[in-house]
Each structure stands twice: as structure tokens, then as C-alpha cells.
């Protein structure tokens, strides 16, 4: 499989269940070790880097199933991500309050996504989905991989969620997995179709929408199932 994500692009990754979409994200982020092949970020080989090191190089992800810190508040969680990014989380002597800048930056991220500062476990589900993204943004990524950001979110809320994603910086390269074709065709500039662990096709929404193979293996099947 060969895949290239140009800077600032908005990629949707689609494909039937079991096509290997999440596996691809796990490979890119290093949560699964690749048997072979190379992963380059801005031309630098990151294949042998550990997951946390890849994050420091600017590769962040979110999770399909909420993977948050239930008993930390939203502000504590995002502040932690900011502190880790700047290498301040090693500091065990100065109080948190001395890191005002990190706290303010975290508060700014929460504000921009309209997430209230409550204990994570007490946040509404949709707000937890946004917190997934806030945590990734706090690492100041250059490439952001979103694993079904709208999973489980009601349709009317999911539009707001994707508007928030759309308004992120144009410098940021985004790849998102999504099953709702309305959302995919509305927000993606490019679409990658995966089937059986391989990339079937990569193209603009128009090209993908017109492709008979896609209609056959994915869109058609999807429409029949729905």
C-alpha cells in the first residue's frame, strides 16, 4: 500500500467494516508495529519511533471509542497534553499553578470547541467526542488522524462536530474515518477507499462517487444494507 497525504488536505478514509481502516491508523501512529515498509513525516523516517515520539514529531490521533481520563477534568486533561508537548510533565517540583501558560492554552482549546470544564466522566457524550479532538490538538499536530470522530453522535450534533473539524487550521493535514457518506462528501477534499486491507482507490469526491467499483463494493452494498 502506498499513501501520501499532502499538507493541509482533508482526507476521508472509507471502506466496509474490517477493511483495515483503524489498523492503518494504528500502524501510522506506531500503536501496531509494521512488519515492513516505511512511514515518512515531512520526509523524515518515523517508522522506528515509539508512539509518543511520533506525537512529538507532529502526528496525533483520536480514538473511535472514547479513550479519555474519566476522573480528570477536561481542563486537567488538555493541560496535561500541553505540558507533555512542551516537555514540562517531567517537572515534579514546581506546582501546576506555575505553568499558567499551559493552563491558559488548554482553556483556549476548550473554549474554541465549546467544551465545559467538568470532570470528563460527567461530560455529555458529544462533548467527550470533542475532548478526544481537543487532546489531539493540544499536541499541536501537523497531521491529525481522526478515527470515526462522529461515532455514536446523533446526526444533528455530528454536523456541528464536523464544522468544528472543518474550521481547524488550513496548515493541518487531516485524515478521518467516517461511515456517513453525507458527511464524507461534504467535508473531505479527497477520499481513500479501503477494501480488504488494500487501497482500492484514492481520488476527489467526484471521482470516487462516479467510480463503478466503489459503487459496487462499498456504496452499493452500504445502500442495500441501509
Amino acid at each position, binding site marked *: 500500500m502506498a499513501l501520501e497525504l499532502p499538507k493541509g488536505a482533508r482526507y476521508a478514509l472509507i471502506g466496509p467494516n474490517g477493511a483495515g481502516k483503524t489498523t492503518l491508523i494504528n500502524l501510522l*501512529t506506531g*500503536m501496531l508495529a509494521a512488519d515492513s515498509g516505511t512511514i515518512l513525516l515531512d520526509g523524515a523516517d518515523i517508522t522506528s519511533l*515509539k*508512539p*509518543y515520539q511520533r*506525537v*512529538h514529531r507532529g502526528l*496525533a*490521533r483520536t*480514538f473511535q471509542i472514547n*479513550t*479519555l*481520563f*474519566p*476522573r*480528570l*477534568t477536561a*481542563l*486537567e*486533561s488538555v*493541560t*496535561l*497534553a500541553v*505540558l*507533555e*508537548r512542551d516537555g*514540562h*510533565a*517531567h*517537572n*515534579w*517540583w*514546581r*506546582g*501546576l*499553578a506555575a*505553568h499558567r501558560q*499551559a*493552563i491558559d492554552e488548554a482553556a483556549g482549546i476548550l473554549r474554541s470547541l465549546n467544551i465545559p470544564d467538568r470532570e470528563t466522566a460527567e461530560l455529555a457524550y458529544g462533548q467527550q467526542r470533542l475532548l478526544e479532538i481537543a*487532546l*489531539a490538538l*493540544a*499536541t499541536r499536530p501537523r497531521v491529525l488522524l481522526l478515527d470515526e470522530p462522529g461515532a455514536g453522535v446523533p446526526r444533528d450534533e455530528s454536523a456541528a462536530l464536523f464544522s468544528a473539524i472543518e474550521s481547524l487550521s488550513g496548515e493541518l493535514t487531516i485524515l478521518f474515518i467516517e461511515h456517513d457518506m453525507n458527511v464524507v462528501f461534504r467535508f473531505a477534499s479527497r477520499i481513500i477507499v479501503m477494501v480488504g486491507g488494500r487501497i482500492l482507490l484514492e481520488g476527489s469526491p467526484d471521482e470516487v462517487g462516479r467510480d463503478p467499483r466503489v459503487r459496487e463494493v462499498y456504496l452499493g452494498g452500504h445502500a442495500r444494507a441501509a
Partner: protein
Amino acid sequence: MENARFRPLEYVFWACTLLPFLVTPSYLSLASQVAVTALFALSLDLILGYAGIVSLGHAAFFGMGAYTAGLIAKHYWTEPLSGLLVAAVSAGVLGYLLSHIVVRFRHLALIMLTMGFGLLLAEAANSASALTGGADGLQGFHVPGVLGFKFDMFGRAAYAYALAVLFLCFLVARRIIHSPFGLALRGIRENATRMPAIGAPTLAHLRKAYTIAAVIAGIAGAVLTHTTSTVSLETLSFGRSADVLVILILGGAGRLYGGIIGAIIYMVARDQFSGVNPQYWYFWIGLLLVAVVMFLPNGILGGLRALRKKPQ
């Protein structure tokens, strides 16, 4: 964000730790033991309550500190504060070395590993009887006192020493908890999967926490040596590792004061019950443990906190 300031109740609590001097002067040696055990429980709380590392071999560091302090007092010098420092370093070095293995495991494997290291060290100390005195314990030294105050039969200086060390270590632990590093530890406890995804070097954090906990446990062991002028194999025993875990669970893990409250209840209960019937006092501790785990899953302190929150 959690407020790092001392709360009024905390001032009251620490003021109360001075009461044994006035109210129960005949129990000052018990009070010293409580302070030592509380400090040991505090060190376990750093890794168990905050980082989520369950250990059944924490006595390894307590014993390391106790024996180091004893060997220094016996063969080199009897000034306790410098001995305390060396004991802290030796326990810390041991903790740092073991941490490279320990932090890679979780759950049952982690418990078995920590227990295995604890047993290894205890048996090593038993075998090296030329150095440690073996089953007879390390004897034949006397630590006269600290900073000019004599460790006498009334135990005033001993309790003051143990309490002062406990308080200072508590301040350090408190500082760590409220630092960025403390937040990172809570993050690991809350979700170890997410941490690498926000760029956190989880294993390095855990190694550091484990080492710090080992240092504090070693300090606790050294204080026991200094205040009793003897070291026994019991300081390294599985029983001590298990007791401190029970103490922390009773009091409530992950809230700093849990280990201290647990130590007070446990040690006083042992003293009282074993006076009534020395053989069966573990029956009562067992009953208490079952009751706490079933009805107060966050320990006695967690239960009290829930009570205080309810009326709102």
C-alpha cells in the same frame, strides 16, 4: 485544577499528631511505629494510588533502607541524618534498577514480579548472615539520638524524629502530586492507553515514580532502624509488604492521607487487639478489610469524603 493550598482540616490533622506527647506519653514508641508505617504507606500510595502500580514487594525498599542505616550505624558512624540520606540513596538506586523491569508489566504479572523481587531480597539478606546477622537480625549498635536529643526509654525524641521525617516527606509527596508530573501520573492511572497518544513517555514517568517511592520507603526503614537500634529480617518480609497494602486500602489509596489514617487504625488496632488475644487479632483486621472493601471501595477516607459531599 485542584487547589494545592493547605486546607484547615489539614492543619488540625497535623496539630493532632502532636497529641501523643501530651495525652498518651506512655504510647510514644507505638506512635513512632505508626509514623514509620504511615511514611511507608505514603510511599506505596505514590505508585499505587497515583500511578496504578500494584506492588506486593514494597518491603524490599523499606528493608534496604533499614539495613543500610543499620550497617552504617554499626560499622561507620551513628549520626542518623546522614545515615538517613545514604539509606535513601541506596533504596533509590535499588528502586531505579528494578523499575526498568517492573514498569513494563501490569496486573497479575506486576504483582508477581514485585513479590518475587521482595522474596529474593529477603532470602538474600537471610543468607548473607555475616553482613546482616541473618535470622538474629542486625544488632550491636546504638544510635544515641538526633541533633542532640537523646533516644531514651520515654521515646520523646524518637517520636519527634519519626514525625518530623514523616511530615517533611509528606510535604514532598504533596508537592509531587500537585506538580505537572503528578498530573501525568494521574493520567497514567486513568488511562494508560491514551498517554502515549498525547506524547507522554509513560515508561519514563513510571520509572521515576517507582524510584521516588523507593526512596521514601527506604527513608521509612532507616527511621525504624534509628529509633529501635536494631534491624530484623521482618523489615524485608512478605508480611510487611502485605500489611502496608492492607493499610493503604483500608485508609484509601490515591489521597495521601489514606496511608496515614490506615496506619493509625491498623497499628492501634493491632496493639489493642493483640493485648486481648495475641493470636487472633488478624481476625479483626480481616473483618475490617472485608467490610471496607465491600462498603467503602475508596477506603475510609473515600467514604468520609462521600459523606461530606452528599448533603450538597
